[in-house]
């Protein structure tokens, strides 16, 4: 028995900007039924959030809305603010992407939750406290009671999002709008948050409008999907229709762009064959027992604490090979990349390159070697000097390594490489802020390959890009690898991207290697509980498979690298050795398949 909750008809949203009026939403129609989860999918700038921000009366002050949004028979757009205030937070509530900035920083959690009850139910004091506590427990908040007195900055990202959900659910709304609720979270936390939302929908019958860019999340959560582009719905239908029988070419393109992890052990199509070049096998790049420590100041008089960002990592890399490094935030993956390139001096350990060491050598010697070692960064805009046209940025390595070339020759080379990475040569005098994210990332790649290096480290190089752009950039990188025999170290938090392009994968946890093996055995036969949890947490963009999967939930949450107990999270049986700084040892369980010491997974599962 379906009951209509929300009907949107002919909605348009436009904004006045310096560059004239921008149409964010161009006349869309839609509806939402009780207990249903509707996915609104689109890339950045598609206007996917604006519909629901308009419903909540949150359109920014330079925006104009037209059309109708009916919520249980009332037109939200024509309501007076005081009337709207009776609905939002009560019958209809919303959670946002960034849970830290979305909570008021100077009020304790309990106060922020209570004011919802005071406003809509006129409940205060103990009674309100009890309801808040109840909801915190329902979103599986650890130590719920203590949290009520804490401030948002004292909690982790996952906990903050739980609080946002609990707060949104306090008045048991008919509709929960979730705007990219898990985008800022690690994949294991994302899995937990999604589970919580799914349960709420089942138990409360709350309808959920889930706004996201992630096809995997949609496949997991939604009954119905609306695909949005340039402010319009290009396609709409049940989750099966959209995933297995997409009609619109844009939907097709989106689905094609998303990497489909195959856990049966098949080789991903984009990975090239490993070619071993003359520079020679295992001596190409080798890191041994690499450590990076930072001092963290703890106030004026306290001794600084030592943060072990990278804690004894060893690996090697062959010519023409792609090594994927996966880890959640705080795993030290970016620090590892910089330590390999000597951008951050390692505290101890060695990196050797073609048989000779990279660390502890003369500046000039290192400088000469940098020609072969390049890096592409995460944020395409930040990695380019804003005061220089892109041509100058691309040319810069040439001025260092091939300064004998004339200006004209350099320009010629820049033109060549721009063409190679798919940039129009007429862009040469453009500035980074005039280009899109994808174009800027192509500039970053052009700069990295102009000296024909042997190794390129990609540090989250596609993470900031929309999926369609992401897949174009990945294709470009793979083409370059084939053409120049490049080796890649590909660092990402996104398992599916790493799966798609890596020959081997290294899983990092709090600065230590947890598992290292070739891609297909990592996904088909993961050994370490953490790897298993990680893989099971990634939402797959295939509803049939995704909904049948069993998720692995382990005790504890990824905590700070400052906490010595955190390193033994998967080895509680050796917790008594914590004081000695015991680190789980890496063992070769199968040929070429390294796994860190751990207790049996049955000991670690949440019962």
């Amino acid at each position: 028995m379906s009951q209509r909750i929300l009907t949107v008809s002919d909605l348009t949203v436009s904004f006045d900007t310096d560059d004239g009026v921008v149409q964010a939403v161009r006349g869309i129609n839609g509806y939402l039924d009780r207990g249903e989860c509707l996915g609104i999918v689109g890339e950045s700038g598609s206007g996917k959030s604006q519909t629901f921000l308009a419903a909540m009366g949150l359109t920014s002050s330079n925006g104009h809305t037209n059309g109708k949004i009916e919520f249980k028979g009332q037109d939200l757009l024509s309501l007076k603010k005081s009337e709207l205030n009776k609905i939002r937070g009560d019958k209809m509530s919303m959670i946002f992407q960034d849970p830290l900035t979305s909570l008021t920083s100077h009020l304790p959690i309990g106060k922020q939750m209570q004011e919802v009850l005071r406003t809509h139910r006129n409940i205060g004091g103990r009674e309100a406290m009890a309801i808040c506590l109840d909801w915190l427990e329902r979103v599986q908040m650890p130590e719920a009671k203590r949290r009520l007195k804490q401030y948002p900055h004292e909690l982790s990202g996952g906990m903050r999002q739980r609080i946002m959900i609990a707060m949104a659910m306090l008045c048991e709304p008919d509709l929960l709008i979730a705007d990219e609720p898990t985008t800022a979270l690690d994949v294991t936390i994302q899995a937990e948050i999604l589970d919580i939302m799914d349960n709420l929908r089942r138990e409360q019958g709350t309808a959920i409008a889930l706004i996201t860019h992630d096809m995997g999340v949609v496949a997991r959560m939604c009954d119905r999907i609306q695909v949005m582009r340039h402010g319009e719905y290009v396609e709409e239908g049940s989750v099966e229709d959209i995933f297995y029988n997409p009609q619109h070419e844009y939907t097709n393109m989106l689905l094609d762009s998303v990497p489909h992890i195959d856990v049966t052990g098949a080789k991903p199509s984009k990975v090239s064959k490993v070619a071993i070049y003359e520079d020679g096998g295992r001596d190409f790049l080798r890191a041994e027992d690499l450590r990076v420590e930072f001092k963290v100041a703890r106030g004026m008089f306290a001794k600084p604490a030592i943060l072990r960002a990278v804690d004894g990592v060893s690996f090697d890399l062959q010519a023409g090979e792609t090594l994927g490094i996966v880890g959640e935030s705080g795993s030290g993956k970016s620090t590892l990349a910089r330590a390999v390139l000597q951008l951050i001096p390692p505290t101890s350990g060695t990196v050797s390159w073609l048989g000779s060491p990279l660390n502890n050598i003369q500046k000039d010697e290192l400088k000469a070697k940098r020609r072969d070692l390049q890096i592409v960064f995460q944020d395409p805009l930040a990695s380019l000097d804003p005061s220089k046209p892109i041509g100058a940025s691309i040319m810069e390595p040439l001025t260092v390594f091939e300064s004998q070339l004339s200006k004209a020759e350099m320009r010629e080379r820049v033109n060549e490489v721009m063409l190679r990475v798919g940039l129009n040569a007429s862009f040469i005098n453009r500035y980074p802020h005039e280009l899109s994210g994808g174009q800027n990332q192509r500039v970053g790649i052009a700069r990295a390959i102009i000296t024909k290096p042997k190794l390129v480290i990609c540090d989250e190089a596609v993470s900031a890009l929309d999926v369609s752009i992401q897949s174009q950039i990945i294709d470009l990188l793979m083409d370059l690898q084939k053409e120049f025999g490049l080796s890649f170290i590909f660092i990402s938090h996104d398992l599916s991207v790493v799966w798609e392009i890596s020959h081997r994968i290294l899983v990092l946890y709090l600065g230590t290697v947890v598992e290292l093996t070739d891609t297909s055995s990592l996904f088909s036969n993961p050994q370490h509980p953490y790897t298993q949890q990680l893989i099971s947490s990634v939402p797959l963009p295939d509803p049939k498979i995704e909904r049948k999967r069993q998720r692995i939930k382990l005790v504890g949450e990824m905590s700070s690298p400052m906490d010595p107990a955190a390193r033994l999270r998967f080895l509680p049986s050796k917790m008594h050795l914590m004081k000695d700084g015991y680190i789980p040892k890496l063992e070769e369980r199968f040929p070429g398949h390294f796994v860190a010491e751990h207790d049996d997974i049955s000991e670690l599962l949440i019962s």
Partner: protein
Amino acid sequence: MSIRSLKENIVEDTFTADKETGGRSLMQSAALRFYRNKAAMLSLIILCLLILSAIFGPYLIPFGYEDPDWAAFRSPPSWDSGHYFGTDQNGRDLLARTLYGTRISLLVALVATVVSVVIGVSYGAVAGYIGGSIDQAMMRFVDIMYALPYILFVILLMVIFGRNVFLLFAAIGALEWLTMARIVRGQTLSIKEREFIEAARATGLSTSAIIFKHIVPNLTGPVVIYAALTIPEIIATESFLSYLGFGVQEPLTSLGTLIADGAGVMEVLPWLLFFPAGVLVTLLISLLFVGDGLRDAFDAKELKR
């Protein structure tokens, strides 16, 4: 947020549409935004007129700033006598004196701003780039200087070294550099952390090349804006000191000195107060609008006070 990404999309669309080869740098787009800001542009025009008349004005009028006109003492502004702003108790032409005073005030502002920019930028850039405990120590020193009541400090210096105009310039400039140093240091720190600096290091660029090719060019915007905002402050300070009797001395004059003189005889010779005051206020307002306009044009949030 979402609107920004929308705008980016628009930029992208229009961008791919036109096939021009020349790009627009951040500087150029800032200039364009400034050009569109009516208040700032009007202020800039008024400011230019004031500066031009301060430079060339004194040569165009028949009266010197210290020569009494024996035929006209305390004469109110009049078209016929040629004393458009009137004369003072000594028969000196007020227009000449105002133009001359404006010139001195602007000169003080210019010299003091240059001093503050030079000291502030080098101090801030060094502290920011070196970082660590040296940075801490250098910034602690700035904090100390901040805590000093700075006008008192200028007065202290004037008491000790006598009332010398050029010393005044330097003293004000040497104290105004503090904020500049803070801003430059903050900018340097944040630029240093940006990935394009890391990219330059990965490319093998030397430290000095990084500083001069990548950090300094990106400091220009904030420095220009802050310098523009410093000028009115210095002019106000100069006139304040002159008013108290610590600044510019007779027969030299500045707007502050003129106002101080005028205030004493406000009831009988009101023009002696109102013309210099009018010029000072116009000057300060237009400088303020130009500074604000620059800040908005560069969209420098961190400089909003």
